[in-house]
C-alpha cells in the first residue's frame, strides 16, 4: 500500500498495553487519554517529525506502534 511520501503512526490496539512510552518519546505527536490509550495527534508526518516518530516506535515495549508508508520495513 503506497501513499506517495505520506507516513503515519499506527497503533495496533490489540497489542497496545498502555505503557505510554510513546508519549514520553514523542509528546508532540502522541498523548495518552484518561484511559492510558494513545492518541495520535499528528496525522501526517513531515520530515521534521521523523526522528521523534522513530523514537516513539522504538520506545514501545510491545511493538504496538509502527510507521506506515514508503519507508516502513
Amino acid at each position, binding site marked *: 500500500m503506497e501513499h506517495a511520501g505520506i507516513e503515519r503512526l499506527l497503533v495496533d490496539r490489540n497489542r497496545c498495553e498502555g505503557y*505510554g*512510552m510513546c508519549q514520553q518519546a514523542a509528546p508532540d505527536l502522541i498523548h495518552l487519554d484518561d484511559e492510558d490509550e494513545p492518541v495520535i495527534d499528528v496525522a501526517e508526518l513531515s520530515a521534521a517529525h*521523523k526522528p521523534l516518530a522513530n523514537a516513539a516506535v*522504538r520506545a514501545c515495549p510491545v511493538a504496538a506502534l509502527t510507521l506506515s508508508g514508503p519507508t516502513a*520495513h
Partner: protein
Amino acid sequence: MTGLERIVVVGASQAGCGAASALRGLGFDGEITVIGDEPHRPYTRPPLSKGVLTGVEPEHSVFLPAPDDVRLRTGVTAVGLDREKSAVELADGEHLPYDGLVIATGARARRLGTAVGTGVGNGETTLRGLDDAVGLRGRLADSRDVAVAGAGFLGLEIASAAVGLGKAVTVVDQFPALLGRLGPLLADLVLAAAAEHGVRVSVAPAGVRIDRSGRLLTTDGALLAEADLVVTAAGDVPNTEWLHGSGIRLDGGVVIDNACRVAPNIVAAGDVVSAPGRDGRMTRSPHWWSALSQAKIAAATLLGREPADLVGGRPPFFWTEMFGLKIRMAGRLPPVGEPTVLDGSIAQRRALLLWPGAGPGDAFGTAVSVNLPISAPKLTRLAQRSPAHQRTL
C-alpha cells in the same frame, strides 16, 4: 553549533539508534554513521524473551525503523579506538574518523562454561540477540526437560515461556530468585506463581557450573537437574574490550558522569556504561529504560546542550511478564519495607503498590503494578510522590 560534522555511533541497538534519533531531533545536520556488529538491521530486544520465544510474535515484528539520514552499517565490528587520530578501528582494518563519538556497544551474555578458550563456553545456550532467540525457540521445540541457570528476570521469563510450551522446567540460581531485585513480597508472589505452573526453582548457594557435556552442576559436582536443554541466564558482560588501550576509563563498564560524558567529544549510553550510584560506587543498570533515557542524555551532551534529565534523576521503569503475572515497576529496586496498597489486592495478584523511598535522601520511592494496566508515566509519577502525599491519589 559545536563544530561537529561527523558523529560515529558504535552500536546499533536501542541506545545507539536512540542516540542517532535524538541527535537529529536536536537539529544536528551533519553526518551520522551507526555501526553494528550483528548482520541484522536494528531491532528491539524485550520481546525476545517473551512473545518471540513462545512463538506468539513472529521474529520480524522486532525490527525497528531505520533512523533517517543516518548511514547504517551492519555486520561491522569495532576493534579499537584511536583517540589521537579520532578514529574508530574496524575489524577489516578501516579507520572511521569522527568528530563526536557515541559508545553504545552494549553487553553480551555471561557464560558459566568453565573451560575458557576451549570453545565449550561458546556452546552454551544463552539468550541475548535475535539469533539466540530464534535458536532457543527451535531447541525448546526439540526438548522435554529444560534447566535454566539464573533466576533473574531473564531466566524466569525463559522458564515461563518454556513451561507454557509444555516443558518440564527447573530454575537454579546461587541466590534466592529475584529477591535482590524485587524484595521479598514480590519475589514470593512470582515464586508462588511459578510453583503453580509446575516450575521448580531452587537455590545452590555454592554456585552452579556447566560441564563439558552441557550438564548443570553445583560447583562441587552434584548434578542439579536432568535436562536435555540447559539455558544460561546469568547476567551480562559489557562489550568494552575494543576500548582497551584507548585511555577510556573502564570500571565495570565505560564510566560516564551523570550527563553520559566519557571524555571530550565522547559520550556513552546503554548496557555498556557504568555510572556512579548513590553510594558513589560504579554501578551498571543494563536495562531497556536506561538505554532509552541515556541515549537522549548522551545526544544532548555531545552537542553541548544541557540534557533535559540527568542519569539517575528520574525513576527508572521496568516490566516483566512471567507465569501469568504482568509486573510494571517504577523507581528504586528492590523496594524496601511494606507497601501501601493503592488499588486491588496482593492476594488476588491484581494490585497497585507504593513503597516510600528507603532513605531520607531518596527523591523517589517504588511504584509497582501487578496485572493492573497502568502507563509508565502514571507509575513514574506515583514513584515520585512523597509518601506523605499518597492519600491524595
